């Protein structure tokens, strides 16, 4: 037996697989609940106050995310409420240089026209307020469900990373163990199997001819 992988390690992996399955089931249930609560909110408030007119559309509306994914942890994801710092400052400097060049050379008429066009409308940060100031209770509950769905997704990703790590470790240990077994076997086979003795073989055949 390989002393590196113990029963405890195997049970830990099995527990993680069980947690992973459980989280997947919970995620499906929570998302399903969220969608049915959205439908209930439309049932309670009426179609005119809750329809796709109030949803944001790319290009027309600008929305600000309220939750961000932090991937700076050691192989773990986590949810944060503030946007992570931008990684490179060089990018920023280039933009500033471009802007100063534009100011020096003067703007073309096309750019002036572009600036006059209304930009995307900024919608409220809280998606509940997209449907009016006083959102119904079922909509608030739907939002709670979807928020918990995001938390579960992050947990699932983290568990999956851990499982992958454990299984990769098991695989490499298993490969090492197999290699070790193969080497030992070949060595022990070489020790046991005798070399063919030509003289003894000749004598044996002579003796076999005797009555």
């Amino acid at each position, binding site marked *: 037996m390989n002393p590196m992988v113990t029963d405890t390690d195997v049970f830990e992996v099995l527990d993680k697989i069980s947690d992973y399955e459980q989280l997947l089931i919970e995620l499906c249930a929570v998302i399903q609940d969220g969608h*049915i609560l959205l439908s209930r909110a439309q049932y*309670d408030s009426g179609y*005119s106050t809750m329809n796709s*007119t109030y949803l944001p559309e790319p290009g027309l509306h600008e929305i600000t995310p309220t939750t961000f994914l932090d991937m700076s942890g050691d192989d773990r994801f986590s949810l944060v409420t503030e946007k992570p710092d931008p990684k490179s400052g060089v990018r920023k400097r280039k933009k500033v240089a471009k802007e100063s060049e534009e100011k020096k050379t003067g703007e073309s008429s096309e750019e002036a026209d572009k600036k006059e066009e209304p930009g995307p409308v900024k919608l409220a940060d809280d998606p509940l307020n997209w449907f*009016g*100031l006083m*959102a*119904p*209770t*079922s909509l608030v509950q739907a939002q709670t469900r979807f928020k918990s769905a995001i938390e579960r997704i992050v947990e699932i990703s983290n568990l999956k990373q851990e499982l992958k790590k454990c299984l990769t470790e098991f695989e490499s240990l298993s490969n090492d163990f197999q290699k070790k077994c193969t080497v030992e076997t070949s060595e022990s086979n070489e020790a046991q199997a005798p070399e063919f003795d030509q003289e003894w073989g000749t004598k044996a055949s002579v003796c076999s001819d005797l009555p």
Partner: protein
Amino acid sequence: MIDNIILLITGTLRNRPIAELLPRCHPLGTFDELATISIAQSPAELFNAVMVDTPLAPFFSECVQDENDLDEMNIEILRNKLYKSYLEDFYAFCESLGGTTADVMCPILAFEADRRAITITINSFRTDLLKDDIENLYPKCGKLFPEGLKFLKNAEDREEVRRICERFGAYKDLYTGVGDGPNDKTLEDKFFEEEVKMLGLSFEQQFHFGVFYAFVKLKEQENRNIVWIAECIAQKNKNKIDNYIPIF
């Protein structure tokens, strides 16, 4: 008509083309000047340019006093104030008709007014609306007027709203069976059930105009039920398919 106006104003604020918004309007609430709502920037402009020749003109008098631009908060206040004015006016009209029509319609409209007051109170807990602003949105033709509305105005959470409702005989049983569990009903469900019951009873009386109102409202309830069943089928969530309000 009120919902159509609010839909068009909100859609225009969000740069939606008017051609996309008009098909979403309720056909019963359309009027000729509906498409020109997009030009208005404030309630005063909306009134002077568009609403002055519509049946909603008398209800705009309170809203025109506010010279604020039409932003999200003001649109919500506009919607609720219009509805309040419409409900109070309708109640006064039914009362003036007298007879069986008044006997049938006034309790239905009073219930609608109280329902709006309770719903506005609960939904305003997570907003920044001032208590005086909230009180101005309560229709005053319900059974909760005046004492109940004063208590509702000062309510801080749902439990307090529940205690206020239980104090009034008409709504003592409103919260029975209401909860957050999977088998519990929501407050809105109880409101719909009570409304359907009252509208159904209106057909028990003869020679009054309340039957027309009841027919339209029950038809709307049927539409909601059908849409709900369709949503449950589309989402493969047949456990909740029976959570509609049966009518007869």
